[in-house]
């Protein structure tokens, strides 16, 4: 069990070396657009405290239940446990979900109203985040949502077998609990309406998202049986789709494309094929998504682009003509002369991206200038949920700066001494805990969620696997007797005899290793390789290895 010193023993640093340490040493957090304190909440789960784990998630990336299911997990490929020789990444996302499943409870922080009113257009991930953050700062926030339910893409763009409605509802509720009002079925049509809104609010933020499918224009695109990915999903989600599916071809390489194939599978299609113009590695979805898709018997064609939609006399789709591509160094593609081929289909779905609603997109106009911002996909083009959240957070800060007149925000690193991390070396050998899933035979049930989540026990086991990278192991050179006891017990090549130390341009510390005893200046721990097993601390006879916990906190510059 960790023995944390009193708060006033904590050393607060603003040194860029220490800031850099976090980026390099807590790869998961660094990879997360929202800089979530991942080791923080996983450690909480490890200690059986799902409530704290939930609170960390709830405050740092707002939508634990949702992101615990549909986040594209930039953190997992970065996880230290997945590095060469070290096994597989921790199932961070599943753990986040566990935090929500077992630790969810209302966060009722003390909020002192500052009397200012904010209007957010769009109840998607970006909008919700802005509302949440500003509400916590004491603003009176109102969200206007065009559909009858809040959530935007979360509600309409993602099929229920990945993200059930009630999960979205719960996460939204915990935001409305902060006093945020959501008015549904309110559509802001154009700039004039925004201008009107600005009269009654101190600031208006447009987070309209990218709810419109990007169109492509190839011969036969308007034949019967051709759909746009997002429309197809929204229709399916709103139970508005009742056509028989036989052979389906989905064209695209993103989440929407994959969702379309899997939705088709549930709508009873016999043969489903996903076609993408580049290779597997170039797709925007994780390998996990792909495997789930393949598991449901969906075929794939790579390095092939559609050149023509083949249809019969009644203009009904009969297939797609593709051409093979070769891929170039810069991942761009060149079609291969005469390599065309036709694949039969009765439904063709184009899921080649989304774009913002054009009508209200002329946001450059003069009357909008001050006290108006745009956020999320509406500004940046379609991205992932976590990126939308991160962007929402950024915008919320800007708005808060303008309205409250604070100087800005600053990263501070809180370094505190720790006696023992509570980890054991054998945790490193715990295998990844598999996510329980709905049996194949029930996959056809349209709205049955496929991933059923970790049991509480499983979440504890999986959490143990986390290296807790936020701990910094360091040899106090002035007390070291060079006895090599630590090197003797190191689990990987993490402790080195160093002849020099450098600060790289990007502000990272780098040790120059040497095997020549005569050159050795110090025995050093390479935090980059360190897996935080604590073997060295237990072995050191002169107790010269210290553990300190690094935590990033952003504070207001008054």
């Amino acid at each position: 069990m960790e023995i944390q010193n009193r708060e006033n023993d904590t050393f607060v640093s603003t040194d860029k070396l220490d800031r850099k340490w976090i980026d390099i040493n807590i790869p998961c957090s660094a990879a997360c657009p929202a800089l979530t304190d991942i080791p923080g909440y996983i450690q909480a789960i490890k200690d059986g405290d799902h409530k704290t784990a939930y609170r960390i998630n709830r405050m740092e990336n707002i939508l634990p239940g949702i992101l615990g299911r549909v986040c594209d997990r930039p953190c997992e490929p970065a996880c230290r446990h997945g590095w060469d020789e070290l096994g597989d990444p921790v199932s961070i996302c599943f753990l986040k979900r566990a935090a929500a499943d077992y630790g969810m409870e209302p966060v009722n922080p003390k909020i002192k109203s500052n009397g200012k009113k904010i209007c957010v257009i769009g109840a998607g991930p970006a909008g919700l985040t802005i509302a949440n953050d500003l509400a916590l700062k004491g603003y009176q926030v109102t969200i206007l949502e065009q559909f009858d339910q809040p959530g935007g893409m979360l509600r309409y763009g993602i099929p229920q077998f990945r993200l059930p409605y009630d999960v979205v509802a719960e996460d939204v509720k915990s935001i409305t609990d902060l006093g945020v009002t959501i008015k549904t079925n309110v559509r802001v049509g154009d700039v004039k309406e925004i201008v009107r809104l600005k009269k009654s609010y101190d600031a208006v933020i447009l987070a309209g998202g990218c709810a419109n499918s990007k169109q492509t224009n190839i011969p036969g695109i308007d034949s019967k049986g051709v759909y746009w990915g997002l429309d197809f999903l929204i229709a399916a989600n709103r139970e508005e789709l009742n056509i028989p599916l036989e052979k389906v071809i989905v064209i695209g390489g993103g989440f929407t494309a994959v969702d379309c194939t899997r939705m088709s599978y549930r709508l009873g299609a016999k043969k489903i094929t996903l076609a993408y113009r580049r290779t597997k590695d170039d797709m925007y979805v994780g390998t996990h998504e792909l495997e789930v898709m393949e598991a449901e018997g969906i075929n794939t064609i790579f390095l092939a682009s559609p050149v023509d939609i083949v249809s019969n006399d009644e203009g009904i789709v009969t297939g797609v003509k593709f051409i093979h591509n070769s891929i170039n160094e810069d991942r761009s593609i060149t079609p291969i002369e005469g390599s065309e081929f036709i694949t039969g289909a009765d439904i063709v779905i184009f899921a080649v991206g989304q774009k913002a609603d054009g009508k209200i997109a002329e946001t450059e106009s003069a009357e909008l200038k001050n006290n108006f911002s745009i956020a999320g996909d509406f500004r940046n083009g379609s991205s992932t949920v976590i990126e939308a959240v991160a962007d929402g957070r950024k915008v919320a800060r800007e708005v808060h700066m303008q309205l409250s007149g604070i100087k800005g925000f600053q990263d501070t690193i809180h370094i505190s001494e720790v006696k023992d991390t509570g980890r054991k070396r054998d945790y490193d050998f715990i295998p990844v805990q598999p996510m329980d899933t709905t049996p194949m035979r029930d996959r056809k049930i349209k709205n049955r969620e496929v991933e059923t989540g970790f049991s509480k026990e499983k979440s504890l086991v999986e959490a143990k696997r986390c290296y807790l990278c936020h701990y910094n192991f360091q040899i106090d050179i002035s007390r070291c007797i060079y006895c090599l006891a630590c090197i003797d017990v190191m689990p990987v090549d993490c402790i080195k005899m160093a002849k020099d130390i450098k600060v790289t341009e990007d502000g990272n510390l780098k040790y120059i290793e040497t095997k020549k005893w005569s050159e050795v200046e110090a025995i050093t721990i390479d935090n980059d390789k360190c897996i935080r097993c604590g073997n060295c601390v237990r072995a050191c006879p002169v107790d010269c290895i210290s553990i300190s916990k690094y935590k990033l906190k952003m504070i207001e510059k008054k």
Partner: protein
Amino acid sequence: MKYSEITIRFCGIAGDGIVASGKILAGACANIGLHVMVNNIYSAEIRGLGKSSATIRFSTEKLYSMGDGLDLLVGMMSKESIIDLRDVKVGGNVIYDTSTIGDVAEEDSLASHITPEIQGHGLPIKKLANEATGTNQGKNLVAIGAICYFYSLPPEMFIDQIRSVFAHKEEHIIDINIKAFNLGYEYFRENYPLNNQFEIDKRSEPRALTSGNDAIAKGAIDCGLKFFAGYPITPATKIMEIAAKELPKLGGWTLQMEDEIAAIGAVLGAWFAGKRAMTATSGPGLSLMSEMINMSVMAEIPTIIVNVQRGGPSTGLPTKVEQGDLNIALYGGAGDSPRVVMAPTNSEECYSGIQLAFDIAEKYQTPVIFLSDLFLGQRTETVTIKENIDRNRCTRKKPTPEQLENFQRYQITDDGVSPLIVPGEPGAVYSTTGLEHSVTGNPNYEEDVHSMMTAKRFRKFESMVEDLPEADILGEETADIGIAGWGSTIGSILEGMEIAKKQGVKTKLIKSIMIHPQHEDSFRKFFASCKKIIVPEMNYQGQYAALLKSRYGIKPIEIHIPSVNPVSPLKIAQKIMETSSELSQ
């Protein structure tokens, strides 16, 4: 593949649990009734750069030596094990660690030296050990687990061994070690499911494992050892540790003295007081003791010095075997100082021989130097020792009532043995000294006294012969080639003779635990019956051959092996073949 005899070597740096590996594997095999012989070789460093290896040979047949060649080499450390590859038989196997930390250069990699005739098997030893124990301990058990599967030996027999070897440790230590074993076993079953068969005779009884050192200590205790004084020295310390453990139980005691000089001093004192006592040491210690040996000769106080020979001279090769101390044992010391020198040839003789040594020392009031060696002393093997327990044994020549009248401690007698009384016994008292003395023990430097006393001290060695065992003669009586050997070399000689026999060459062997004095007639008869005589031994000079030459005037073919490892039977067989071809020309 089916096997009835296997030789396995664990190779690594001291600290990898190499020795423990040998112990567990050997114990397990002995338990299921196999014949086992184990030889450990480790450097004098406790840890760090010292290389260490344990070779275990087990068979359904009786074993006499470590044989030639390995069926399996387990390289716990890559670089250190490369040289051992040359000992692996054609068709043999190697297990190497695939989870060592950091890059390995091609030339330092064990695997890169494996030839196509040999099969390498990767095993993540370090990793699995970490998984099981959370540290680097248990590497050896991971390997043993793999071996167990590889030769399809029954796992239970190993689990039991692990339990008994770690019996003194807490339960969880035992558990993690068993876990390590299982991980190794499972890994091989997963990755190398095709394994080999080793024929085990289900009916055979468990066998006892013992080392030469164990046997000596036990033999001494069983024949009445009461007091032990010594000083830790490789490879003899084990004897002292056993004495320290056992003697107090029998009303005796063991003292660890500040050095060998003090140790043998204390032993002399105990004998003076009439108690059976001994010390055990190795070359350097024996050298230190030589002055005290002279004292024992001069004062005719019995002494037993076990010398477990190691490589010399000086501090030499503390962890390597050599038969280099024969000369110092026979001749070392000032003046004309005769002493008995014995050399057991196997563990059984370590037991019976030390008992003989005590009886002779006590009866003839003389120092006995008992020459074991590192290989014989430290190797563990399955043996059948005929126990002979009589702790009240006494061969001391006590004075008759007449003799007690004006008692002469150094009375001149035909057999040279004078009556001896010890403190606490009623009847007489006497004083002794390292100075030359008269029959009473009073200092006396007169010429005829000195020559008379010297003659008396030597006369004991002639009369002694009747109590000594005849020399053993083995092999084909009609053979023209005769071999004479001593000490642990005999094992290799016997297997060498077997190999030669398979090639159709007859040989015979004469061996005796007695180096000095010997039953000279039996030797003379034997030598007379040979056309050629071969004398193999593990030293550079041919110290035993020199003795035989001077004593029997023979001209033997000498094989001198200043060896750090036990003699290879093949080497001896080759010499025999050469000799026979010379004969046939």
